[in-house]
């Protein structure tokens, strides 16, 4: 498709300071997201996916790289424009309890952002609040309730409605299903899908749950140790993974047909855990059966096949398993 991405991230790096230590949480990350598309960001906890999302949302500063929204450089536009662009990027967090003010009624929680942007008079705001509740399939009578009177799924719907109040073009959802009951997860996932399609919103969906990713996402970016190691369509990345880490992540999914705990696989994951961060060499070299001289320099994200947007940070381009000595 020949169109400009809604969001472009180019070579983004984020350094965090934690307890006197300096950690490069995100290194040289590049990705893009089109309007109306769901891009899933997957990877284990500590891989940097939340930090990358927060940098995109402007919650944490980045120290290198470029961030473009609607082809505009965030850093190059005047502050007033930047604020109005930021408003078009909204977040939904994992824990609705932490993001909804427990003292306020639902009506107040949803009206607040509308008041801030000067949506209209009281009756216009009241109508819009009712509309937002309908969008997330909640009953209009909930406006007089407080968050604690709602179930976890209902609270997450309110958090989504509040994000939608700003009419975002990009919705960043950081593990929005993780705090929910398993049966509620499925209904919230399909709600996200419906809203995103109907309103043509671009969505960055951060999740550790690969089954949910498969259900919800158009494209996937896999992060490990602060870097994006592979990106492409959901089918390409999840069915024909090219990077050794992606293969390991997928192989680690429990499989009813195997029905065994693969000790070699656990061992491979164990050895992968602490990563040397300074070295230029590919992190996966010690365990990779395809390793060669070239791997002393870590690969850039490059095309897996000639004609697609499937990219991997690996010098090799074949389908043979690259990890797991089993």
């Amino acid at each position, binding site marked *: 498709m020949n169109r400009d991405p809604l969001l472009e991230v180019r070579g983004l790096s984020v350094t965090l300071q934690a307890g006197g230590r300096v950690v490069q949480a995100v290194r040289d990350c590049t990705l893009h997201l089109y309007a109306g598309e769901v891009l899933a960001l*997957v*990877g*284990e*906890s*500590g891989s940097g996916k939340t930090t990358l999302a927060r940098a995109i949302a402007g919650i944490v500063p980045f120290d290198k790289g470029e961030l473009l929204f609607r082809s505009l450089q965030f850093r190059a536009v005047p502050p007033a424009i930047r604020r109005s662009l930021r408003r078009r990027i909204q977040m939904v967090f994992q824990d609705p309890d932490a993001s909804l003010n427990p003292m306020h009624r639902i009506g107040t929680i949803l009206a607040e952002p509308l008041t801030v942007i000067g949506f209209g008079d009281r009756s216009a705001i009241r109508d819009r609040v009712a509309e937002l509740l309908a969008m997330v399939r909640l009953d209009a009578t909930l406006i007089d309730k407080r968050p604690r009177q709602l179930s976890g799924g209902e609270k997450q719907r309110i958090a989504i409605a509040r994000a939608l109040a700003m009419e975002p073009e990009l919705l960043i959802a950081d593990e929005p299903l*993780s705090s929910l*009951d*398993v*049966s*509620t997860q499925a209904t919230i996932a399909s709600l996200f899908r419906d809203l995103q399609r109907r309103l043509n919103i671009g969505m960055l969906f951060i999740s*550790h*749950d*690969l*089954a949910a990713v*498969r259900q919800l996402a158009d494209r996937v970016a896999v992060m490990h140790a602060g870097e994006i190691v592979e990106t492409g369509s959901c089918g390409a990345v*999840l*069915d*024909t*993974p090219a990077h050794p880490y992606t*293969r*390991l*992540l*997928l*192989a*680690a*999914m*429990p*499989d*009813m*047909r*195997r*029905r*065994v*705990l693969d*000790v070699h*696989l*656990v061992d491979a*994951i*164990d050895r*992968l855990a*602490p990563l040397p961060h300074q070295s230029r060499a590919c992190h996966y070299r010690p365990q990779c059966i395809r390793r060669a001289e070239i791997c002393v320099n870590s690969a850039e994200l490059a095309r897996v096949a000639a004609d697609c947007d499937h990219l991997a940070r690996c010098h090799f381009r074949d389908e043979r*398993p690259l990890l797991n000595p089993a």
Partner: protein
Amino acid sequence: MSITTQSARRNPVLEVEGLSVRAGSGELATMPVQDLSFTIASGEVLGIVGESGSGKSMTAYAIGDLLPEGVAVSAGRIVLEGRPVLSLSPAERRALDGNRIGMVFQDPLSSFNPVRTIGSILIESARRHQQLSTSAARGKVIEALAGVRLPHPELLVDAYPHQLSGGQRQRAMIALALLNEPSLVVADEPTTALDATVQLRILALLKRSAGSRALLLITHDLAVASTVCDRILVMQRGRCVEQGSTADILESPAHDYTRELLAAAHWPAALGSQPQAGAA
């Protein structure tokens, strides 16, 4: 080997007989668990699988004496190492809970007190149940943290829960559950909040630490259960619909509901694990 297995069968670590749990009272009362019976021998892993609301977590809470207010066991027996626990005094029951039963939950962040270090939580438990001096307990705790393969246990002992990753917190939770050498470990959705690689490592740790103990794994995920369980019990609306060896449940499910669960858990299909065409 077969002799120990048989003697273990004769002397199960945990016997649950006709367990029913009632929530609320009067006309509004519901029965989250009804007439549930199973046993777990030492060295055995039993998985209870079901959707949310099936009563699987209430079963775990009943065994661990953690039922929420207004919810109580209304019938049946829970026998741990030959002792009927429901007839114990509250003090006896408390001693048993931290000692003979280790519990692991889904979200260790909300299970650990955020203002206390990992070490102080574990040290208190070791001291209470093992009559150890503080320094002996600290040594024991560092050993336990190393036992669940946490890196730098001598530093982690002074860390707060939020300073650990999700996987590390779950390891610390397992260290706490195993600290006083329990005969039964009950793990309620222990890997639901974790990504696939961390999940696999935690399952491997649970399986390994089960050793000669009995392990009860509560999960909504049949694939997770199939990875570590010897036997599986399927629950629906508070009742057991079937139980049997993992192979029997997966290969020849007797109940429609089990077949539905199996059909829902279809993915992953790829990655060199496609079913062999024409496999017997």
